């Protein structure tokens, strides 16, 4: 099939949960398509599952920030893609990436995360108690979805939860496409300064947390590296899970037969979590990679220097991997979805996220047998304009 004209990517989804329509049609005709990036760069958009995996698993594609181009426009014109600072490991290739990841993977193993289950159940129960105290209606995002992962990552990392207003605000601004250069830069600096202060505090007075553990494990880590690591873990640790919890609840409420199936058989929860990750794919523009040399994927030649954006949401709806992909089906086998990415950068905290989601959904449905939306669904504001998709608020009643 001949190459069509370059496409321009839009993050605006179809309805509440479906990938942007252009990615769905491209996957059928051109799973690797020419794409014009926001700065005019002519790169590629990958929407097919097998091509997405191939790109993300191939070390000839680099994650380095300074080689990349922005897939979507932002109001803020940030500096010309600077090289990622030391420790900002999601933008490093091997071996730098592995140096940092190696220090962290032991903190996020399946076993360690399972040991946190009861503690997370306690946090979730407290949030549900707090919701009940509000009466019979509340914003599920503000009172449930956002505080749960924030409390968890704060405790694990060693960030005082009392400081959440600052980091939640800075994260929100940093993620937003619509904020101005001044505002985004100020938020970035504010969060960086805050975390740098925290790193210095932990160095002086170590406590029982990941940040102090890193300082003890590798005395060579600089304050700059530790600040970047803390930045990644804190931002990725609360914003993504918060949106997955809220959007996942919205999806269940919009699919009453699936909600009923899950209520009737709570043992479906693990599969339901995977299906919610597949179906919702909240990382909606990216990851992006830059070709370090000419690479051929499925007969398409990607030239050195060209940037590829992988649409995880579109790949997760590929019928070649997931039969009847448009159906939200909590009993399907959704394993192998790319909701956490793929390759060496696949989400470090995914086993933590799985437990937070499993415990969160389970306890929410148990506590509120009559959980429902408290407003017409079309009134719910969707995060089309953020790096992580989801809802701005989710008014529910019980």
């Amino acid at each position, binding site marked *: 099939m001949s190459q069509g004209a370059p496409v321009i990517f839009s993050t605006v989804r179809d309805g509440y949960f479906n990938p942007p329509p252009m990615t769905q049609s491209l996957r059928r005709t051109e799973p690797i398509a020419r794409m014009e990036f926001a700065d005019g760069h002519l790169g590629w958009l990958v929407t097919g599952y097998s091509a997405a995996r191939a790109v993300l698993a191939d070390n000839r594609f680099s994650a380095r920030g300074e080689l990349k181009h922005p897939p979507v426009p932002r109001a803020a014109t940030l500096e010309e893609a600077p090289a990622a600072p030391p420790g900002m490991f999601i933008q490093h290739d091997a071996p730098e990436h592995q140096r940092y990841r190696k220090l*962290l993977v*032991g903190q*996020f193993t*399946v*076993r360690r995360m399972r040991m946190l289950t009861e503690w997370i159940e306690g946090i979730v129960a407290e949030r549900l108690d707090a919701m009940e105290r509000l009466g019979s209606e509340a914003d599920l995002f503000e009172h449930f979805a956002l505080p749960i992962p924030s409390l968890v990552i704060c405790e694990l990392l060693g960030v005082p939860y009392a400081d959440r207003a600052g980091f939640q605000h800075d994260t929100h601004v940093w993620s937003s496409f619509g904020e101005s250069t001044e505002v985004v830069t100020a938020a970035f600096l504010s969060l960086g300064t805050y975390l740098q202060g925290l790193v210095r505090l932990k160095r002086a007075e170590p406590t029982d947390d990941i940040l102090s553990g890193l300082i003890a494990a590798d005395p060579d880590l600089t304050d700059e590296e530790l600040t970047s690591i803390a930045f990644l873990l804190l931002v990725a640790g609360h914003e993504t899970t918060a949106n997955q919890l809220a959007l996942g609840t919205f999806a269940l409420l919009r699919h009453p037969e699936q909600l009923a199936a899950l209520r009737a058989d709570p043992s479906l929860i693990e599969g339901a979590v995977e299906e919610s990750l597949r179906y919702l794919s909240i990382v909606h523009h990216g990851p992006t990679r830059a070709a370090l040399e000419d690479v051929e994927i499925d007969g398409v030649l990607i030239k050195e220097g060209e940037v590829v954006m992988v649409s995880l949401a579109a790949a997760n709806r590929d019928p070649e991997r997931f039969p009847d992909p448009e159906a939200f089906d909590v009993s399907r086998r959704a394993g192998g979805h790319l909701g956490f990415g793929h390759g*060496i950068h696949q989400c470090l905290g995914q*086993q933590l996220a*799985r437990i937070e989601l499993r415990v969160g959904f389970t306890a929410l449905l148990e506590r509120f047998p009559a959980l429902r939306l408290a407003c017409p669904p079309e009134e719910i504001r969707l995060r089309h304009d953020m790096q992580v998709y989801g809802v701005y608020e989710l008014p529910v009643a019980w």
Partner: protein
Amino acid sequence: MTGDPLRIEVSRDLCRGAGMCTLLAPEVFDQSDEGVVLLLDARPPAALRAAVREAADQCPCAAITLHKPSPMPEVPEVPEVPETP
């Protein structure tokens, strides 16, 4: 039916500690305290093969290789002898 025989190999160099193998086939894979893959059973019983295949497929770093077992000494196949009526 016993299914095709299987021998597992893992690469601790390629492993980046995502934990999918431990999640999907905990009888066969574990993670060290440092988060790196540990192979508990290189020749798992047939009942676990589906889970092992899933783990190999879902490993984000292709750190799990599945082999047919190394050739065993040839055992001549015994031709089926029709039962005498």
